[in-house]
């Protein structure tokens, strides 16, 4: 059991003929993911490494291969369109890696997705992995191992660090979901915590949050009322100066709710232990599970 993806997930890679698309399509294949199709408009009929057929559209890819999840590497100006194309083709899970999509594009995309079945992860995210089953994203596969901890994060490389610390201690992961660093994105922290709560394979939850927005507070409120699974959290950006953009467009502190302090208080009020040092995420999680 897992959330979002498993061995049966069939992936189409949008932007497969681009540099990042090709590199990560191969990496996902190497990990064992069923990458069954690629899409690059105008390149229909080609093949990647003589095994993954490339189509002009997601609709054609779906008809030919039955793909049910999409991994998007389309550059920022066309990424919103790529997301909506996948949704219109009836793809149930869309993982958008693309960085730098204008905020208003995502506002429009999410308005279009409203009321639809499609789940969007990202953009500007590392993707999702269920270790030893399916990797749809850009995370290094080898740092993961199967196990009981569900990891949800707004960051990319910081998640790798957290996962690495867990795996080094022998603590495996049920699924790891990077929801992305942009201010307006798909699946939220609370929703993923809710999925982990309902997932029998997940025994404990790790949240990697950061400055900006209000999602940590929502996740904390959900956990407090509706979950008994062990949990721990780390928050990045305690030292970030207010008003400046720290790489992630979503990580600008614009109001009091966005500060690490406010989020830490919310976690503490919910009874969620907050790990203070990024070097102690593994040990902190082990403590929470003890």
């Amino acid at each position, binding site marked *: 059991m897992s959330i979002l993806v498993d061995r049966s997930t069939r992936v189409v890679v949008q932007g497969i003929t681009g540099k990042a698309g090709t590199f990560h399509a191969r990496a996902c294949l190497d990990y064992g993911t069923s990458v069954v199709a690629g899409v690059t408009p105008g390149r229909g009929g080609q093949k990647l490494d003589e095994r993954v057929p490339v189509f002009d559209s997601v609709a054609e890819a779906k008809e030919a291969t039955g793909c049910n999840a999409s991994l998007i590497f389309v550059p920022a100006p066309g990424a919103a369109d790529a997301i909506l194309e996948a949704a219109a083709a009836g793809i149930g899970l869309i993982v958008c890696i693309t960085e730098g999509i204008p*905020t208003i594009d995502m506002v429009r995309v999410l308005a279009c997705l409203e009321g639809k079945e499609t789940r969007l992860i990202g953009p500007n995210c590392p993707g999702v992995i269920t270790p030893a089953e399916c990797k749809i994203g850009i995370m290094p596969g080898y740092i993961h191992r199967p196990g009981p901890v569900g990891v949800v994060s707004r960051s990319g490389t910081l998640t790798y660090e957290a996962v690495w610390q867990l795996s080094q201690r022998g603590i495996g992961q049920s699924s790891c979901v990077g929801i992305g660093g942009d201010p307006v994105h798909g699946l939220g922290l609370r929703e993923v915590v809710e999925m982990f709560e309902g997932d029998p394979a997940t025994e404990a939850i790790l949240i990697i949050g950061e400055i900006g927005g209000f999602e940590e507070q929502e996740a904390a409120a959900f956990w407090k009322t509706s979950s008994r699974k062990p949990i721990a959290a780390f928050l*990045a950006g305690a030292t970030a100066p207010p008003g400046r953009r720290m*790489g*992630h467009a979503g990580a600008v502190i614009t109001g009091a709710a966005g500060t690490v302090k406010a989020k830490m208080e919310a976690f503490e009020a919910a009874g969620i232990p907050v790990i203070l040092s990024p070097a102690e995420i593994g040990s902190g999680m082990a403590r929470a599970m003890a």
Partner: protein
Amino acid sequence: MNVFEYQARDLLARYGLPIPPGHVASSPEEARQVAEGLTKRPLVVKAQILAGGRGKGRFLSGFTGGVRLCGDPAQVEGVARAMLGGVLVTAQTGPEGRPVNRLLVAEAPQIVRELYLAILIDRERRCPALVGSSRGGVDIEEVARKNPEEIYRIWIDPQSGLWPYQARGFAARLGLRGSLLNRAADVVVRLYRFFCENDASLVEINPLAVVEDEEIAVIDAKVGFDENALFRHPEIAGYREELIEDTREAEAMKARLNYVGLSGEIGCMVNGAGLAMATMDILQRCGAEPANFLDVGGGADQDQVVKAFGILMADPKVRSILVHIFGGIMRCDLIARGMVEALSHAKPKVPIVVRLQGTNFEEGKEILQRSGLPIRTADDLADAAEQAVAAAREAG
């Protein structure tokens, strides 16, 4: 990316917003010329810096006020002479203040009433929001704290957009009636069009004023843009260079790096924004301060790495450098090659601590070792931070 007030005014004027006549000036003589071209009195001279609280600010020279009313062009010239080239300290600049290189000289209409109006993206509701208050001209955060009921918000459906009736309802909630109701609603509609068509991230008019003759005027405007969308607004993107006051940030911008200059002593190069923030956090926990935020990202090439490392090495505040890479898209060997190349141009003046993990980390470590350069390696994050802090203390 926030722009200067004079730039914001120019952009807003194209949308027909009611902006008192005025112009930017960068010398006392130019300020006088601008003043002579304006018809109404009094005039106002405003220091152009990217921080608020200018009115109550003070120059390091002792001159008070970054916003000054003047009766005639001669007085404008005198005030301009006092401000230009000075450093203005306000509640928002920090004690180091900001250099004043440009002034706005404009007509100062007689204000009857001050309102507040802003448009921004509400990330929780995933749509644009209008924020207004009948208490403008003051710090809106303070109004939000003390009189939250005096702040009024509406959310705009991004599909159907803002309709004039919503703008009128909004203006009515700000207490406007009669012809002012329609004029203010028109301002709101135009401002929303500006916001959407230019990918603004924030437009804040404070105050939006009711002035003499039942008119509405934009007295001060703070405008920020979505950096992700600058690719479709080349003109606005062109403002960027004028805006950067920190020379390190100017260098980083040219190399397309995510860099924020800070005031600490440890230069950091990290991949990924979250990891970069966490790295800054752990330095602080070790009792040190980062000299910068620098995320080399996943897509950087070797040349960018060379430049990034060069910026850290050239920073006189830096006492030690911490390179922290968890390879994902980014390959550790590329980072190592970039460092070696940068160090071949200039000898390191400060100790360097490196932690590599993830994609190709072994190859990266080998490259650094083979180079024979005096680089300390660390195995985990705690070790890396401690070594960097210790090295900075030795160097200091």
